């Protein structure tokens, strides 16, 4: 027996029952925006806490443990501190762009968030080009970083921004191509259909076996680079550039950049889960009948991938800027192109593993 969740659909129907259509649309959009902003803030704070705790355990430390149980409220305290701080900025900065930059970063990650399905029929926006939309939207963020670095009138920021430009442009390719590999397997760009295909025939990482695993590895590497995290944190590179592009930002504007980094990490992990690990599907279909648990499985898998990214960060040294490009153009890209062909051949010959 299937208990249909359909939360979003129910709310949608109810809104359109009690109000006129244009008004309901406005209310619905506002509700969605508020929900996502709340999620943005909460998930960001939780991820910051998680990062600090996990980093501490890797480094034989305790991490934040004073504010709240296990230091859970530490990041909230930090956020409050950041809100109350004065917003200082360099005198000769390009004020308009300088102030605009953090919002670009935030808007980009919020837009990407909107197409993620948290469980069956529990998403804001199930567009039929979902994956394409994700790739397109996630590249907007770099404009914010470039603007922020350029307009700060600081040479360290500028170097960071330029590095971010070349890094994102290069690794966008790898993210796109590895996603494309899975699209070949799924035969659709719509996220709900991708998950449906995995419900029918097993998670894509098993279904597509070798090429899917290669694609997953490339996706994780390129995804880490996309989110500008170590070992690809050249744009911040605290031992080289101080703080990179956000050197001159303070208070809440800095916090926007900071939170956006963590939300981007969440998004990359979520895409990885949707494409390779069956989204909100439970392993072996054990809780298929209770769609509400889909949220649990989805978050669990996402946190698993986020943990992997944190593990990368706290283990590896940083790459140099030319090695970053070598890795992309000499290793990831050719392998990726070959991988797509391999996947196409496997799909064509029907060599996928289906349960």
């Amino acid at each position, binding site marked *: 027996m299937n208990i249909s969740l359909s939360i979003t659909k129910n709310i949608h129907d109810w809104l359109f029952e009690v109000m006129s259509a244009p008004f309901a649309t406005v209310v619905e959009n506002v509700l969605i925006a508020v929900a996502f902003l709340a999620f943005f803030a909460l998930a960001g704070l939780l991820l910051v806490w998680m990062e600090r705790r*996990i980093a501490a*355990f*890797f*480094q*034989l*430390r*305790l991490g934040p443990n004073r504010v709240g149980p296990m230091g859970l409220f530490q990041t909230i305290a930090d956020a409050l501190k950041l809100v109350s701080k004065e917003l200082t900025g360099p005198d000769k900065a390009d004020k308009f762009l300088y102030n605009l930059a953090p919002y670009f970063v935030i808007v980009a990650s919020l837009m990407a968030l909107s197409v993620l399905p948290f469980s069956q029929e529990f998403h804001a926006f199930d567009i039929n080009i979902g994956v394409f939309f994700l790739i397109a939207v996630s590249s907007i963020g770099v404009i914010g970083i470039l603007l922020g670095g350029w307009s700060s009138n600081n040479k360290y920021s500028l170097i960071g921004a330029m590095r971010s430009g070349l890094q994102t442009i290069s690794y966008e390719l790898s993210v796109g191509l590895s996603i494309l590999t899975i699209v070949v397997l799924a035969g659709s760009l719509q996220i709900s259909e991708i998950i449906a295909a995995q419900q029918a025939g097993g998670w894509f990482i098993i279904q597509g076996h070798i090429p899917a695993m290669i694609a997953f590895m490339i996706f994780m590497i390129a995804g880490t680079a996309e989110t500008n995290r170590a070992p690809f944190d050249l744009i911040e590179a605290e031992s080289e550039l101080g703080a990179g592009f956000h050197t001159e930002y303070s208070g809440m504007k800095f916090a926007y950049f900071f939170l956006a980094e963590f939300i981007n990490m969440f998004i990359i992990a979520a895409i990885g889960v949707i494409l390779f690990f069956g989204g909100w599907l439970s392993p072996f279909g054990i809780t298929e009948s209770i769609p509400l648990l889909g949220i649990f499985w989805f978050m669990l898998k996402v946190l698993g991938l986020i943990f992997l990214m944190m*593990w*990368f960060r*706290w*283990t*590896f040294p940083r790459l140099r800027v030319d090695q970053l490009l070598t890795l992309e153009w000499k*290793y990831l890209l050719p392998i990726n192109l070959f991988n797509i062909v391999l996947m196409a051949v496997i799909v064509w010959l029907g060599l996928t593993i289906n349960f």
Partner: protein
Amino acid sequence: MSYFSDIYNGVKTLLTGMSVTGKYFINARKEIITQEFPNNRATLKMFDRFRGEVVMPHDENNEHRCTGCQKCELACPNGSIEIIWDRVIDEETGKKIKAIDKHIYHLSMCTMCGLCIEACPTDAIKWSQNFSNSSYDRTQLTKVLNKPGSKIAPGVKDKE
């Protein structure tokens, strides 16, 4: 082909690195070395030789062992010690001898080199293991080591 062996070796070394940090992550409970300082203040004990600050021990009769010979003052490289002394008449012999009025110690100028304690011929000053010496007021770092009304212990003489 070196291209593929490069990839293989690269991934292998990365995974070995991750295994080291991963091992520590799993054993984090045992391995954590952080000391939670203000919480363990009561149990935290310094080593006997720890150089906290210079003190002058007094016995139960409020007597110290300082003869006012000023050797510590001379030995100090930074001028952290100032001794204000006077001549008093010794009760036993009736001769005039030196006696300290104030043994002033500027903790703010002290570099904890220990030369004064080495120089002291009568062991009048020693290290205390007191480690939290910070203060909001600089004047509190200037200390008078001999207690008010204290006297020199009988029998303590300058070695000539």
